[in-house]
C-alpha cells in the first residue's frame, strides 16, 4: 500500500497551496497529482506519487549514489564482478 511511483511534472495549476495540482508524466501516462506537500516542485522535477499526492521531490544528484557505490565496489574487487 505504500507504493509510490516517480513521475515528471509537466505543468502546474492552482494558487491555493492545499489544492495545488500538477500534471505528472509516468512514462507516457499523464495523471493529475496534488502537489500540496511538495511546494518546491517545479516543472521538469520528478516527484514521488502516492494515492494521488506527491510526497517528495526526487534528488537527481543523490539518485546517482548507488552507481558511485558500484564503481567503488568494482575498484575494491579489482575485477569485473559481473563476469563472475
Amino acid at each position, binding site marked *: 500500500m*505504500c507504493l509510490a511511483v516517480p513521475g515528471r511534472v509537466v505543468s502546474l495549476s492552482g494558487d491555493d497551496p492545499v489544492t495545488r495540482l500538477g500534471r505528472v508524466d509516468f512514462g507516457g501516462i499523464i495523471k493529475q497529482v496534488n502537489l500540496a*506537500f511538495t511546494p518546491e516542485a517545479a516543472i521538469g522535477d520528478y516527484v514521488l506519487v502516492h494515492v494521488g499526492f506527491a510526497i517528495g521531490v*526526487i534528488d537527481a544528484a543523490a539518485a546517482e549514489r548507488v*552507481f558511485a557505490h*558500484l564503481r567503488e*565496489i568494482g575498484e575494491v574487487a579489482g575485477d569485473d564482478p*559481473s563476469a563472475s
Partner: protein
Amino acid sequence: MKFRDEYRDPAAAHRLAAAIARTVTRPWTVMEVCGGQTHAILRFGIDALLPEMVTLVHGPGCPVCVTPAEYIDKAIEIALRPRAILCSFGDMLRVPGRHGDLLAAKARGGDVRLVYSPLDALAVARAEPSREVVFLAVGFETTAPANAMAAYQAKRAGIRNFFLLVSHVLVPPALRAILNAPGNRIEGFLAAGHVCTVMGYKEYEPIAARYRVPIVVTGFEPLDILEGLWLCLRQLEAGRAEVENQYSRSVRRAGNQPAQALIREVFRVVPRRWRGLGDIADSGLGLAEAYGDLDAERRFGPVCAAGGNDGECISGLVLRGERKPPECPAFGTRCTPQRPLGVTMVSSEGACAAYYRYRLRQLAGDKAT
C-alpha cells in the same frame, strides 16, 4: 521509466550481491519492514542472490495485513446501512473480517466503492449530499498525509456527510514491539523508504542506539534493496548500529515538513491493535478532537474489540517474522489467493501472497526432486 529502470540492472545487482558475499563472515538476520520490499525481493529473486549466511525476514509493513478484523466488521456494518457509501482502497475489499469481507457486503447490496485516492471519496460525498460517505482510512505514515488532506478539505469546505473510519498505524512502535519480543532474532532492519520520505528518520536513531541494531532506510527497487542490505551487513560486521539512508534520492533526515504538519493538524497518536502483533501503545493515529465530527466511530458507533482467533492461519507468526509462509501447512493448498485463510495471503503486499505468486512453482519443484 526514469528512477526505476536503472535500479533494475541485473549486472549491477550481481555486483552488489558479490560485494555482500565478500562482506559477510557470519550468519545475520535482517528484516525488511515494508511489504513492498518483500514483494520486490521475491519478484526479482533477490534472496536467491544472497549468501546462505544472510537470512531475510519479512516484516509487518503491510497495512492491509495488520488491520484488525473488527475494523473490517465495522466497515461491513456501515456498508450495509441504507444511506451509506463505503469507499476503500481496492486491496481492503477481500480482507476477511469475522463475518465475511467487503466484496461480500457489496454482493449483499452494500454500496462499496473502490477509490484510488481519499480525495475521490471526498468527491463522492460532494456529489451525493443525501448519502453518508465513509472512507476506510488505513495505512502507514506514507498514506497519512493524503488521508489527513481529505479530512482537512472536508472540514474547510463544511462537508457534513463525509466520515473517516481510521485505522492508521506507525512503524517505529512496531519495530520496538518486534525487538522487545522474547523470541526476537532480528539483528538489523531495512526501514521503509516511503514511510521515511514522509517522516524522515530521526525517530529511528534512538531505536538503533537503544537496541544496538543498524537501521538502513531503503528503497524498493532491486539495487536499492541490495545496497540497503550491503550497508546494513557492513554495519553488522563492523559492530556498528546506526541509521543510514540508502534511499537518499527521496528521503531527507527531517522528512516532508508540510506533510508532517498536516498529519499533526488532523491526527493524534493513539494506541492501536495490530493483527499479529496485538495491542501496541502509541502505535497509531486517530482523528484529533477538532476533527471529531468526521469520525465514523463517533457517527456509527465504536469498533468493538474482537475475540476469537484466525483459526488455522499463522499470519501473526509471519507478520512477526517468526515463520516464513512455506512453513505453514495450509500454504498453497488450503490457503491460496483465491481462497485465503488470512490477511497475508489476501494483500498483494502480504508475504504469503508474494511467495504464492513468485515461488510456488519453484517450491513444488524442490519438493518433487
